């Protein structure tokens, strides 16, 4: 015990007077090194005579891009792709570079960047009291010869600035940004069913492209690829945030990864041809398909829920057998009157409502009785083969439907209930509207179309 105490005493004496000299790992003090980095960031930002083209994904919303110029008086001016005004107005605000946890670039008065941060959702959108989850403080990350990269302080999104060329700057100043944005939007609003072909081994996949260029928090400023895989029945999809550039769009946050390929940007190949490029620089021309790429039977009751057969005696895409039988049914219905005051049932539209999950179909005949609204509803269950062949089975029906069923037998009991059907897209020959066409396999003349 005594030895132990002496040992402890000796040890404490040894330890108590141990001197550890501080040896700096760096040749400069922390504040000197911080000052150097502040100077580096400030000098870099102000050294681009034509400014910087910056992209910034928001954490909760889509992606955005800016043209920014920084001067030595803490002024920053910017264009942004938030709306038409921001794309055409070079708005001035303040910035400063300061020491924080690292070196901090702060956009410290209101700017387009702040609109994404603004908790007031009436300003641009975003979640009320939160905004798009986007920053106005950015921590310096790294610099390359033509770019400087920051990370958002709170929401950790990459803020990448690339030096603009004089030609790009001139385009921005000539309202070219809005023109470029509008051109891209117009391409996708006028190009039917845009898609790219992805060659994979011996098969060629088609990936449909959907662009949402709104500021919607949940879906805006995003591009999606969807398409059928090689088996012809599995669908696949991927979505990425994007931002408008003066010459196309950038897919942000590591690009859009679809079927193992990382797509990074859209560029105009020539005045009217748009192409997608992957991370290896491979080009995919955006093409147009007259009808959607996904077969209709995969979408009926799962995206497209109704097929509304118009009120007409004949219509594009209607077979002769359907025209005759519809006329017979319409005539038969006039024998009936249900409501008071009494009129006569007049056949108008017919709506087919599909549910692909419960495999149910409701056929609703709109049959006003004189001036009173009235309809007849026939409920079916159905089966569908992998190839998309439908077989309908009548379920329980109501009293009116039962009584009047005889007059509709030409359509229902003789055809819908006994034949098998396929469903496909049909483009209206004059209006160009995309419709659905159902065809009887057993009676090729019994075909009809309806709005989707």
């Amino acid at each position, binding site marked *: 015990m005594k030895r132990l105490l002496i040992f402890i005493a000796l040890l404490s004496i040894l330890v108590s007077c141990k*001197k550890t000299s501080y040896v700096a790992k760096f040749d400069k003090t922390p504040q000197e090194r911080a000052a150097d980095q502040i100077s580096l960031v400030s000098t870099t930002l102000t050294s681009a005579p034509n400014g910087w083209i910056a992209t910034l994904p928001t954490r909760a919303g889509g992606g955005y891009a800016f043209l920014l110029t920084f001067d030595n008086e*803490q002024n920053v001016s910017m264009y942004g792709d938030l709306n038409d005004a921001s794309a055409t107005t070079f708005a001035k605000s303040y910035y400063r570079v300061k020491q924080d946890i690292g070196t901090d670039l702060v956009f410290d008065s209101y700017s387009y960047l702040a609109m994404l941060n603004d908790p007031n959702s009436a300003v641009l959108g975003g979640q009320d*009291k939160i905004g798009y989850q986007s920053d106005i403080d950015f921590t310096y990350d790294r610099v390359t010869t033509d770019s400087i990269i920051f990370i958002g302080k709170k929401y950790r999104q990459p803020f990448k600035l690339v030096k603009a060329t004089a030609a790009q700057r001139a385009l921005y100043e000539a309202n070219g940004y809005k023109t470029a944005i509008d051109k891209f939007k117009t391409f996708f609003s006028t190009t039917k069913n845009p898609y790219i072909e992805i060659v994979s081994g011996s098969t060629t996949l088609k990936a449909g492209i959907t662009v949402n260029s709104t500021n919607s928090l949940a879906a805006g400023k995003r591009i999606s690829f969807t398409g059928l895989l090689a088996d012809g029945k599995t669908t696949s999809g991927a979505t990425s945030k994007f931002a408008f550039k003066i010459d196309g769009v950038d897919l942000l946050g590591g690009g859009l990864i679809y079927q193992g390929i990382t797509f990074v940007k859209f560029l105009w190949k020539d005045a009217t041809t748009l192409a997608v490029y992957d991370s290896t620089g491979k080009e995919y021309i955006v093409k147009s398909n007259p009808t959607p790429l996904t077969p209709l039977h995969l979408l009926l009751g799962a995206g497209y829920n109704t097929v509304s057969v118009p009120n007409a005696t004949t219509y594009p895409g209607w077979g002769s057998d359907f025209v005759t039988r519809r006329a017979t049914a319409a005539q038969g219905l006039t024998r009936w009157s249900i409501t008071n005051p009494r009129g006569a049932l007049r056949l108008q539209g017919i709506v087919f409502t599909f549910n692909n999950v419960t495999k149910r179909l409701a056929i609703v005949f709109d049959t006003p009785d004189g001036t009173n609204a009235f309809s007849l509803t026939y409920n079916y269950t159905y089966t569908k083969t992998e190839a998309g062949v439908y077989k309908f089975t009548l379920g329980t029906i109501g009293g009116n439907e039962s009584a009047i069923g005889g007059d509709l037998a030409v359509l229902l009991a003789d055809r819908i209930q006994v034949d098998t059907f396929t469903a496909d897209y049909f483009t209206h020959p004059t209006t160009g509207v995309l419709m659905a066409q159902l065809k009887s396999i057993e009676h090729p003349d019994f075909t009809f179309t309806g709005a989707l």
Partner: protein
Amino acid sequence: MKNIYKLLTLTALIAMLISCRKTEELNVDYSAFNADNPTTNTPLDQWLKSSFLDPYNIEVVYRYNRYYHGNSANVTPTKLENIQPTMQIVLDGFINPYLKVAGPTFTKKYMPKEWVLFGSYSYDDANADGVAGTAAAGRRITLYGVNDYQPLPSGQFYAWDRHRIMHHEFGHILNQIIPIPTDFEAISKGFYKQPYRETSTETAHANGFVTAYASGVSTEDYAETISWSLINGQAWYDYWAATASDEGKVRLNLKQQNIINYYKNLGIDFKALQKEVQLYMRNTLDLRESKFPYWLSQKMTMTIDNSSLVSVNYGVSSAFSSVYNTIRTNVNAIPGYGFTFNNIRINFTTPTTANLEISFNQGSGSYLANFGLTMTLNQTTGEVKFGNGVAGGTTAPWVGNANIVKSAIQPMLDYLTASTTIFIADWMPTGITADNFMKYGGLYVKGAPTNYFYGSLVFNR
């Protein structure tokens, strides 16, 4: 011997303390640190310097710095163009009234030295109430929501709301320097309840609070009572007290008295301050509650007594006096009754009706006679037009008493309801002391401002 031991032990202890002490110079050079001190010298900066920094040593921090709002909150920076108009509001409706009433020494000493501005309100999360302002350390006021600024008149609410926040926060700042009197909390003891959000404004009102927020805790009650007394004025405060429960009314009046005393101890006449703020609210913001016409649409009585001290001090118009004196003589001369005329009242009962009330005595018994009036009120111009109305009941004052004195007081009814007479409502008499400001109001004849009458105001539930 014992002392030697002690001395030795002490020496040993000191030796131990000193033996291993190492002195090393740290060589900290603060000038080498990277100060975050954004400076520009724009016309805005010059204006802020000459209006705030030079006279009051107040720094206006408008460049965004997240450490001023707490790291987790969602707050966006200020629009530069809103800073000067917002700070002008601060100057006109907040600093200047204090400067005028409390004097330059107080204002320079106690005005918060740091004003921090943010563009949006501050939200902790998607469910949180927005924070509109904060006070800290007795020296900083933070105003949020500056991006909501609009020029007047559409910016009336913005300006009013800034004042609501500032006077509230400055109340806290004063409380951080000089504590709230201990007798304040006792006034509403037992009625404070958190979270205040679960208390409705109606309940808080009935219980004697100016707002639901005030009912949370006594410190907020203090700041809210200061703020609402100043921004909405004495008429509003009296109306608010009159329309609370009986106990609530007592509490509201006690609280205001407590605040008046608190300010008195600071060397400030709270009522004079209230008057200055109200003049700004009325003349600059055109605030409804700061103008007399609005209150004619509320349940209120105006007691007109030409023999009252206020009437004697501030004078009465000869045109009205002659009518007043005539009916006094007439009432006193009604044969066989021996009446003594007291005074008259106008009771404002609804936005379109009022009544003239004559008070008189028979011996020691006091009696009333009422005569119905119609009223057309334009709150914007303050124009009031009276007409003969119907009796408001079948009780003695409306029927028996009214019949007896009707012909005697007819000149007053004629004066009020003359078809060519339009009155303008305003606070009167001009020059009344701050103590009585907004406690007296009156009407003058449009186009003939020397023909007027006024009386003391009492609000009714």
